[in-house]
């Protein structure tokens, strides 16, 4: 049987969850034997070249590019997993939820204490992705098959979830594995 294929992405996240993936330490060598990586910042492959078995996504959706990326992952991954607090509930970026985008922009680019007193501008280059009205958890945009909470989820949880999936066994969630911070 060919190796399961894994893809990963960070949307509106901080890469902390990817750091936690690397935190499996020397087991990363075992992981490389067990799976093949496709689109992922870990191997710097930028576009999908085949259908993947497992997609791991950290970060929620705060702009149009995140949504496109997420939909692309859904299309290419058989199993899609929300990794971490931001993917599951928006996390820190979702602190802006409930506040009108206009007010957020004004605070960040016009009125904030670090804005150039000569006057700031709200970035409006057409290349920039459009900011969404609020930050969305992934499962509010596409179907998500599994959730790994934590900020970041522990390396242990990521490792156990991945190996359970690869071996086709159920994941045994012990008390130490489910933590939100």
């Amino acid at each position: 049987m060919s190796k399961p294929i894994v893809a990963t992405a960070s949307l509106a996240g901080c890469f902390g969850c990817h750091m936690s993936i690397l935190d499996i330490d020397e087991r990363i060598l075992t992981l490389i034997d067990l799976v093949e990586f496709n689109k992922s910042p870990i191997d710097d492959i930028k576009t999908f070249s085949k259908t993947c078995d497992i997609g791991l996504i950290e970060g929620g959706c705060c702009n149009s590019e995140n949504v496109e990326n997420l939909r692309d992952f859904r299309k290419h991954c058989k199993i899609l997993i929300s990794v971490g607090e931001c993917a599951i509930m928006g996390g820190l970026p979702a602190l802006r939820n409930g506040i009108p985008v206009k007010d957020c922009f004004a605070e960040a680019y016009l009125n904030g204490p670090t804005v150039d007193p000569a006057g700031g501008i709200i970035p409006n280059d057409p290349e920039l992705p459009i900011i969404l009205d609020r930050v969305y958890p992934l499962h509010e945009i596409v179907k998500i098959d599994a959730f790994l909470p934590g900020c970041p989820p522990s390396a242990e949880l990521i490792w156990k979830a991945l190996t359970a999936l690869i071996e086709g066994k159920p994941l045994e969630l012990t008390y130490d594995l489910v933590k939100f911070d």
Partner: protein
Amino acid sequence: MSKIKFSVDGRECFGKPGQTILEAARDNGVYIPSLCRYEGLKPTGSCRICTVRVGGRYMAACTQPLSEGITVENTAPDLEDMRRAMIEMLFVGGNHMCPTCEKSGNCELQALAYRYQMLVPRFPYQFPLRTIDPTGPKLLVDHNRCIKCHRCVAMVKTKDGKSVFGPLYRSKRKKIGADLTLAAGLTDDQAKKAMDHCPVGAILKKEIGFAVPIGRRTYDKAPIGSDVETPRT
């Protein structure tokens, strides 16, 4: 003293007259999860996490007096799922960003979510717009996390017995307000108690935070209720 015989999930238990179902169960090593209840305080039965089934009827174990011969269901899968749903509702109804919260690791709501292994709430997040009130000299009140359990209303009092906290408005608009003049008169010790009595991170003592490292906080290693539970023999 006379003993009251009852059972919880088929386990034979004995309680004392005047006890509630929750108290008697606890004395028999059976944990019935609760959230708004605080030891030593008159229970209000407002959060409903402690709902049990007795003779097919649902009741709050923290307020229901024990009676002879009752058969209590505590861990039936549908009851546990209902409790989990209530916990999930509390998470989506406020703004609970645990990684940013000083109470994380010592929070009873979070501890219940851990106990029930909540990976994601089944309900959509509401992201209500709530405020933080940092104006008091000793305490900060974060309405994003308040679950309106009323513990603070009953427990945080001045020396002459005045409540520092009180409910404002009703229904969805309801929030817990602090009397700033009274709050300013609290001693450091009283302020610490106010923070400790709040089950969540809605009342925080100023000038100290994240004092206990991860790994040594109340619910880092053992689930809430494990101090009560004794294994079935």
